[in-house]
């Protein structure tokens, strides 16, 4: 057991400050345990989000010493022994209270995505899909919607990108739909225009923070960008479109 120092953001979107707390830390404790201890003993009204305490629900996203992380999967013994641990809310979203952010923008992005659309014929019987054909889709579907990648992406962080780009999480979701063997919808035009795939300049910061180790940039975003290029920027396709009009091309 060792007493450690913490600074936790207290306040809302307009005003707030870092408040000092001390807390005893014992073997195996994670940052979320510390938050709960402080909440129970010293600050009953300290707001935080959590559910599973095992890295499965993606509720407890915060910034710990400036790095976006899951509080429940960050062990105290990973952090430097003597440093003060600073816990702040996600920077890219408005603060609701203390270390809780308003992540509703993410739900709005999801709503805009054309849902899974199998053909009627296919749903009349069992789907037959080989494991190797769904491996990649399953890899994307490991996402726990913690929004750490969304928080990290500079396009979203810079705010004006928010109305142009759905962000890495939703690029991943779009990729999982586009690569689903039974899906029949066409989202490539949306990927480009509505969801703004062009805004991403492949810095890979999102991939670095993903707790599920999803290869967001390489496996999801780049293949989507390639599909967009094939469709819209391929010189032969461009010519085709000039000659026959846009409509024909998008329905093929």
């Amino acid at each position, binding site marked *: 057991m060792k007493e450690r120092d913490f600074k936790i953001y207290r306040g*809302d979107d307009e005003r707030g400050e870092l408040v000092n707390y001390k807390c005893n830390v014992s*073997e195996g404790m994670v940052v979320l345990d510390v938050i709960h201890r402080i909440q129970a003993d010293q600050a*009953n009204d300290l*707001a935080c989000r959590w*559910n599973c305490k095992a890295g499965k629900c993606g*509720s407890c996203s915060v910034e710990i010493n400036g790095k976006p992380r899951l509080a429940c999967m960050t062990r105290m013994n990973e952090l430097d022994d003597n440093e003060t641990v600073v816990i702040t809310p996600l920077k890219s979203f408005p603060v609701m209270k203390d270390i809780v952010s308003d992540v509703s923008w993410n739900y709005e992005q999801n709503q805009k995505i054309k849902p899974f659309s199998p053909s009627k014929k296919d749903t009349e019987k069992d789907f037959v899909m080989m494991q190797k054909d769904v491996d990649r889709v399953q890899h994307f579907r490991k996402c726990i919607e913690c929004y750490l990648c969304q928080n990290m992406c500079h396009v979203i962080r810079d705010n004006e990108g928010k109305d142009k780009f759905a962000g890495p999480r939703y690029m991943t979701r779009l990729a999982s739909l586009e690569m689903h063997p039974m899906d029949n919808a066409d989202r490539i035009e949306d990927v480009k225009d509505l969801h703004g795939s062009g805004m991403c300049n492949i810095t890979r910061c999102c991939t670095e923070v993903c707790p599920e180790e999803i290869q967001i940039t390489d496996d999801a975003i780049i293949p989507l960008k390639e599909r967009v290029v094939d469709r819209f920027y391929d010189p032969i396709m461009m010519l085709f479109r000039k000659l026959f009009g846009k409509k024909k091309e998008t329905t093929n």
Partner: protein
Amino acid sequence: MILTLGEFSMLDISGIKRLQFDVLVIGAGGAGLSAAISASQEEGIRVGLVCKSLLGKAHTVMAEGGMAAALGNVDDRDDWKIHFRDTMRGGKMLNNWKMAEIHARNAPERVRELEHWGAVFDRTRDGLINQRNFGGHRYPRLAHVGDRTGLEMIRTLQDHGIHQGIDIQMECTALDILKDKSGKVSGIVSMYRETGEFIVFETKTLIFATGGAGKSWEVTSNSWEYTGDGYGMAYEAGAELIDMEFNQFHPTGMVWPPSVKGILVTEGVRGEGGILKNSEGKRFMFDYIPEKFANETADTEEEAARWLKGDKSARRPPELLTRDVVARAINTEVKAGRGSVHGGAYLDIATQRSAEDIKRKLPSMYHQFKILAELDITKEAMEVGPTCHYFMGGIKVDAETSMTNIDGLFACGEAAGGMHGANRLGGNSLSDLLVFGNLSGVEAAKYAKKLKSIPKSDDEDIKRIIKSATSILNREKGNNPYLIHEDLQKNMQYNVGIIRTKDEIADGIERIEKMKEEFKEVKAPGTSQFNPGWHEALALRNLLISSEAVAKSALLREESRGAHTREDFPTERKEWLEYNIINKKGTGGEMETVKVKRSEPDNELKRIASSSIEDLEKEVKLDHQK
């Protein structure tokens, strides 16, 4: 309208926000989402969905191992009849017969529907939904996605559900039910967690899909949401709670380090071949095979090993006995001084499967132990012990409509009781959520259609509910809600835990009485905005009601059956098979706990449940040939 300090004495609710629905679902786990989706398919029905967390974060997200359905993709001998028989035997025949039948018959169709909505299950070699072995299931029956099946389920339902025109209210806590003069459901008072603002949902029907109350115990796999709100609110409104003495302790929770004690280790580890050993290195489960299961369980390590390799003539290893049996066995080993270093048992998959297989089939277990316990499960054995996991009991419903004894109040999922009897089989919850979520949505919509208008609520009731919530903030000083909760958890752990006796339960009840008094003076400091202390205090009432119902039912049931183990009545007693225990609010406001005679099962169901496995397999084979 935000109610601030001091405003409540002359409470004026004329400005309060009100929304109208035909079907309002409380809870957005697998059950709630299924219910909302099926209700929304009905023309002209306004559907709302309310949840305490953000959408997609409900408990269901944590489920690991899979959902049980007799698809027969891996072993084509499977059939609803055998699933039904397994479920009844697992529940020690105390299950609601009709519910168990509806569940087993409909689970396959609901799982397929989930696939059609976009769920991507692991595949068999033929490209169908793969199924894995689990405790108490005769055949590989659990459709799964590695060890993150719950995530797949909730995300699929969520992404499908948001396009069905459902009005979703997130981070909103329901406080209490409203009824009209004739006793019909008319609405529910709720509170937005962010602002502390109150809202009245006026509705023809309510579907409670609020989950369980596992937060009543100290060592638990459950999250903060599991405070029995559905039980508490339904009870206060006059609904009956059934089978509350049956609380499932999952045999394998993490035991070390202390801060993660209770976090679940999926039964999938044993389904994939994991074995249990004590400190002497002995595979002890062979010593704990109940007579009833003896002829379906391997009795040597050699036979168990053949089973793992897929030999259909070999019987299942004893690690896959039902959860109540395995949890008690671990408990006994630890008590006898043969526990692991930190007081559990060793669960070893490292010597049974290759590192590659383990990482592919159990990735989140690998990750969880690596980070939280700094242990590599492909090389070392895990330490595990029992953890509170699931409420078999819950709100009593009609099997065919999911409606409670209150007109317009429905319940499904873990919030409802009856389907699982004295012990739930692993994987039967997720399928239960789909089957009864769907059913309750359909039935609630039907009921709502019959009502011309929303029944009228009484403003005085609304005021009373709001006042009792705000008084927690407005009190000058009072008791710390977190500390009362901690006391309650300790009390349930020690007095109403896995092994129970009369004196301890009675002591437990007495302490709950004291805590109820302390609760009357509970105080949350701070304002109404996103104030966890206040939320904790609001949940405390429901935790206390749930715990009291558990303890009183446990005291009354003088036998050991399934998950309910009485040291002073160590065996099943035939006469008790005829009764369920019911809790309801008495006319004087106190809790009444009574034995109620069970109705006679349909003969055909009785025949199926009690046939020998050989006979039933023959019968199924003939059925399948037809």
